[in-house]
């Protein structure tokens, strides 16, 4: 197994004593597509910026390709692509000139890929950036991050300004990037369906901490909605382990449970003498349940 591209241990950041991220430990292996979820202010952008070394950590450590992120050498930077939340393009230039400027910093640049994507995404390379729509600018930002075929692509809410067609094209491209199993993608998004469609690993940040992380399938198996149906009234002190939310109505109860397992299902059925039915949740449902 190859070494992880990104490793963070007990990573934390605080501004003037106010913590904005605390105790985050993660690893990103080659081939991972990680979706980062969290409410506004949960610490998603801070986490991504710490991983890229934009700002020094106030606790713990972050490493990228084995180097401390904050002191990343130039050769390692050539293996990273980044799309910021708001584009940082140069208004005065044409799209082609902007691409030319950014491309010149990298030892290798895939012109054919950029040209193909610009055609597919309908980005007019002759147009001045100042005259582009927000969506066009975002597409161009993504092109700039993909052109040097980075090993690690980090995107901070990359699809927020894109229409559904462009979003789908973008997602297909990300899958293509990670398809060879050598590259990794970490992206944050509020569009949970996109994360569900794309990611094989999920990080959920809540109140500046990593609330849950792991494979997407494991998350779906871990957090479920449980329906309990008994022929008699359920006990007043109905205790379901790791319950996130519980609704009871005489002989029936519905609960959302974390760390669910088949053992727990059997045990609960025996204890209550009731039928226990498990309903898998969509990622959006899981996210909403975690934040109720």
């Amino acid at each position, binding site marked *: 197994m190859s070494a992880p591209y990104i490793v963070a241990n007990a990573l934390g950041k605080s501004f003037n004593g106010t913590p904005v991220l605390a105790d985050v430990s993660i690893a990103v292996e080659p081939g991972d597509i990680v979706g980062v979820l969290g409410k506004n202010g949960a610490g998603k952008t801070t986490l991504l910026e710490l991983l890229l070394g934009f700002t020094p950590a106030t606790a713990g450590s972050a490493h990228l390709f084995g180097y401390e992120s904050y002191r990343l050498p130039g050769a390692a930077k050539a293996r990273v692509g980044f799309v910021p939340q708001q584009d940082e393009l140069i208004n005065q230039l044409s799209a082609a000139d902007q691409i*030319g400027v950014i491309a*010149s910093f990298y*030892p290798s640049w895939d012109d054919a890929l950029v040209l193909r994507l610009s055609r597919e995404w309908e980005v007019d390379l002759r147009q001045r950036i100042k005259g582009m729509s927000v969506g066009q600018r975002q597409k161009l930002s993504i092109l700039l991050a993909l052109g040097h075929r980075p090993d690690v692509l980090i995107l901070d809410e990359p699809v927020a300004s894109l229409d559904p067609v462009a979003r789908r094209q973008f997602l297909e491209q990300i899958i293509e990037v990670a398809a060879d199993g050598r590259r990794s993608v970490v992206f944050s998004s509020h569009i949970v369906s996109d994360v569900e469609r794309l990611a094989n690993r999920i990080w959920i940040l809540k109140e500046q901490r990593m609330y849950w992380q792991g494979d997407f399938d494991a998350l779906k198996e871990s957090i479920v909605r449980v329906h309990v149906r008994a022929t008699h009234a359920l006990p007043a002190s109905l205790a379901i382990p790791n319950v996130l939310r519980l609704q009871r109505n005489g002989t029936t109860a519905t609960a959302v449970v974390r760390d669910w397992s088949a053992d727990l299902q059997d045990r609960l059925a025996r204890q209550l003498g009731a039928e226990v039915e498990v309903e898998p949740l969509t990622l959006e449902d899981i996210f909403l349940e975690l934040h109720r």
Partner: protein
Amino acid sequence: MKAVLRLMVTYFTGTPLLRGITAFGVIGMIGGSAAFMYLPPLLGSQGGPSRFSLWQETVLTMLPVAGLLSFALGASLLPALFARLASSHYIYVLPYGRAKLLASAFATLTLVALAVALVVLGYYYRSPFALDLVFKRAFAISLLTCSLLYTVLWLTGRSGSAIGLLVGALVTIATLVLPIRFIAWPSQPLAGYWVACALLWGAFAAAFALAPRYKGAFARLKQALIGRRLGASYDGGGEIDFLIGTARPWMLALGQVIPILIATYFLNGFQRAMAPSAPTPWLFFLTILSILSGAAASIAATRSRALWLRAHWTRAELFRRVEDAFWRHNSYALGVLLVMLVGVGTYFYVPTSTLAFGMALLMLGTALSTYVGLMITRRLGWIDACLAVAVMLALMLVAIYASAPSTRAGKVVALEALLVVTALVFRDIARRRWTNLDWMLCRADTHVRAST
């Protein structure tokens, strides 16, 4: 190397307009210098018959200079592009981004300074002077001047605030005064210039390289030293002043004293014995400052949207209120300039008539730049930009003319009357534009370009 070259090419050719300006500059410099060197005797004054008429000689003589100015202007994307890349996340993820960006800026300025030195060399090619000394002197002075000049563009372009404009004014004065001092004293050794260049670039490079590491500490220091007193809180003035940024007129007004005192030191070291032509640079610098204080009005249209939403005013009434607010704001700065003019003028025995013309000129400078600022209600177009530049040049020319010893008072009065009429016309244009103000066309970056 590839990135440095690409950045340099982009600075000069990033837009179609810059491509044209740069091309003209290169052709003008090379063609003009070649004509100057290989078509002798060009000037009849150098002895021997000239094969050209006077106007042809004038064109040929001025062509390299025009080319040089165009070439330097061609790189005017440097401050904007540098600032944009330096403040973006790209600088963190581009391989060796910070070093390459800095190298490209230094190489561009060196190239411009080299072009200046070569053109100057062309001028002195057939003279008896030692060409290596001419080259060194021209290169040193132009490298420092260009460095300061682009720093002015960067400072004024990145900040629409009074402090940004003040710092810009400070560097503008240095840009104008240092070469004058150098030219005035040609026997002065070059070492001082090289040291100044090294210090300027050393400080800039150190600040740029260490910026990410000490950004937090610098922000805290700035907050402790300046923010609490000047910028971070607001506890006075009306709502209109707060929304359109005219709440602290004293800051700009008192801040002007510093560049004036520095210019005083550089011009004559506070010595009262002055040559007859000495009032000229004085009036010139003070007129520039009066224009600068008025430039703050260019932010008015963008920032007035919040006022429009909150107050039940017509657009015409909004214009009157904003105009009043800016006059209130700028009158503080104008007041300080007038006091400085009278104070400095009295100290240096400047003639009373010059002081009187100067006072009127400062008022006109403030009025004209205020209305030019208020006229900017959408993207800064070519006509507005040319108009603004023409007015600024006119003000400076009148300043030079008014302070000359042989000036006729009637002519100065007539010129100033013409400027009064221009100010009234500008006010009328601004009022009409505000009557049809469209905030969709008022981009936030408009005032930055305008103030630049």
